[in-house]
């Protein structure tokens, strides 16, 4: 086992990793930027070292200063948390070269899953369904029409080199394809310097369901159930739960199998998450794999009783996975991300000093946070303030517990996403499990949030 782990992150996840190390009897070293001098992770770690000014590129992304700190403090492993350097294959490689264990997958696996287009091809070749569509880039109308016929309508045309919605067109029928292709291609060429596009089936109301996996690099890959993360806004998750409500046992088995296969294909080790879109009751499509621990990992921990961060550390130290083949799932867990944002004003960040901070508690409630009364939220980093996780014997109990916990939670001085969560938890569609990725846009009454 490791003697000392350097935690290359901040906020609640740095605190979470320190806690896991403590329970394993491992010493902890933290890094921090000048903006985080008074942060909780700095206080809790056995040692802390300032590695740069506030801007992340000069501190939490400053590889030379991070590696120098690891060497000076004698750390034998680095935990990257999520974000920052967690999915940087170059950083994982540098750790390898410096003989410091990177607590995560090998650089090759990060690289293979990091190129989303290549990953899509690789998965398809390995028999894992991806969103149906064209194979390679489409350059002329004839190819577009042929791909349209194969894919079916509605479909979406996307820029091959693109992102951010530019060069993207939703097409309802074959009659509109020609015009949409020309427009999308022209837009893509203007925006990205390449008019190449590809075609994907347009999923109207998919759910986002992901599978937590653990792999020990000795041939054992286990799937630890799924999480439904459909409640999101602009591709940012807000509320996650496990198990996914209303999923048939057959589809669930297929998801877990596909996730294990995806991990095996890239020679994965450590903790990872395979993300899928689920359509209707029968269809699953691979979208991507996150090669790190995720924000919403506590949801899985609550229903499995497994400490994922400790498992990550043990696997990195070369231990075998010692979990039973058939994981026992207990009850239902929901996580609400409490962000320092104003949901009534288009999620405007709300940094500043927290004047009051009274945590909820009682049966079934867990809060992972780095905040405290008097803490000033720096404007330089993400707005996640706390993760409230509620566990219940069933979904109804978990929802009731979450509602009462969020009402107990007192945060003064900054705006938070709590009012939005309360509205979601009160929604009849949510109660019935009718959750799709467009839920927030379709079911949340932002006008009512403004009145509160």
């Amino acid at each position: 086992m490791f003697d000392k782990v350097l935690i290359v992150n901040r906020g609640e996840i740095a605190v979470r990793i320190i806690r896991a190390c403590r329970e394993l009897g491992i010493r902890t070293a933290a890094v921090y930027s000048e903006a985080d001098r008074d942060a909780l992770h700095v206080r809790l770690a056995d040692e802390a070292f300032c590695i740069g000014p506030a801007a992340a590129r000069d501190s939490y992304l400053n590889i030379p200063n991070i590696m120098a700190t690891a060497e000076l403090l004698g750390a034998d492993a680095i935990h990257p948390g999520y974000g920052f350097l967690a999915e940087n294959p170059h950083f994982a490689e540098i750790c390898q070269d410096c003989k410091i264990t990177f607590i995560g997958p090998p650089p090759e696996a990060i690289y293979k899953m990091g190129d989303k287009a290549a990953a899509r091809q690789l998965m398809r070749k390995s028999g894992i369904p991806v969103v149906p569509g064209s194979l390679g880039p489409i350059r002329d109308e004839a190819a577009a029409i042929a791909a349209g016929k194969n894919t079916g309508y509605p479909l979406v045309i996307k820029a091959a080199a693109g992102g951010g919605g530019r060069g993207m067109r939703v097409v309802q029928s074959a009659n509109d394809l020609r015009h949409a292709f020309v427009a999308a291609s022209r837009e893509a060429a203007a925006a990205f310097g390449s008019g190449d596009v590809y075609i994907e089936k347009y999923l109207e109301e998919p759910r986002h369901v992901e599978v937590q996996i653990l792999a020990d690099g000795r041939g054992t890959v286990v799937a630890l159930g799924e999480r439904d993360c459909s409640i999101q806004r602009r591709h940012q998750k807000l509320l996650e739960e496990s198990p996914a409500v209303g999923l048939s046992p057959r589809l669930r088995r297929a998801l877990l199998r596909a996730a294990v296969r995806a991990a095996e294909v890239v020679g994965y080790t450590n903790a990872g998450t395979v993300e899928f879109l689920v359509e209707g009751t029968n269809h699953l499509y691979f979208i991507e794999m996150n090669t790190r621990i995720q924000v919403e990992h506590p949801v899985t921990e609550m229903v499995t009783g497994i400490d994922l961060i400790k498992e990550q550390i043990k696997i990195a130290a070369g231990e075998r996975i010692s979990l039973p083949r058939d994981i026992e799932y207990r009850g239902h867990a929901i996580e609400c991300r409490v962000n320092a944002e104003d949901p009534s004003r288009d999620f405007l960040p709300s940094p500043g000093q927290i004047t009051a901070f009274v945590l909820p508690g009682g049966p079934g409630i867990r809060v992972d946070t780095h905040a405290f009364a008097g803490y000033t939220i720096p404007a330089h980093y993400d707005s996640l303030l706390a993760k409230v996780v509620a566990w219940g014997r069933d979904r109804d109990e978990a929802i009731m517990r979450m509602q009462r916990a969020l009402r107990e939670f007192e945060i003064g001085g900054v705006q938070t996403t709590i009012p939005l969560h309360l509205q979601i938890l009160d929604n009849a569609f949510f109660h019935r499990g009718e959750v799709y990725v467009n839920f927030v846009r379709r079911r949340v009454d932002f006008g009512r949030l403004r009145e509160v």
Partner: protein
Amino acid sequence: MTQNQRFDLDELRALIRLAAEADIEELEVEGAHVKVRIKKARAVASAVLATGASPAGHAPADTAHGPAASEQRYTPIIAPMVGTFYRASKPDAQPFVQEGDAVEEGQTVCILEAMKLFNEIPSEVAGRIVSIVAENGAAVEYGQPLFLVDPSPAV
């Protein structure tokens, strides 16, 4: 750093205030892990802090930005990177600078070693070295004061 290794900043501030008000020139306090020497420079006090075997924490950096330091006219040369502080290019070589030496802007004052790379650190100010704050061979963090420089022109 562990809680018990941390030198309480409020205590430090209180000591500086005490030294500044009292009719003394120097105040030395020694704890289990930290030794603090507060030396009054003319009218104002400046704090000089030597850390023990433990890697340097925030105390030195904070001290430099503390009330006493901000009031005085000495400019710190701070570590622009994480590394091991060396005063000379080789163990048997002369230090780049001594207390009392005049330095020019851009003149190498020390070396910070990180990952087997020896980085020459230039002074960002011209003046006279008043005090060498960091200990030779110590690990220094980003922003930690290494030297105090009196930027006023030599008399």
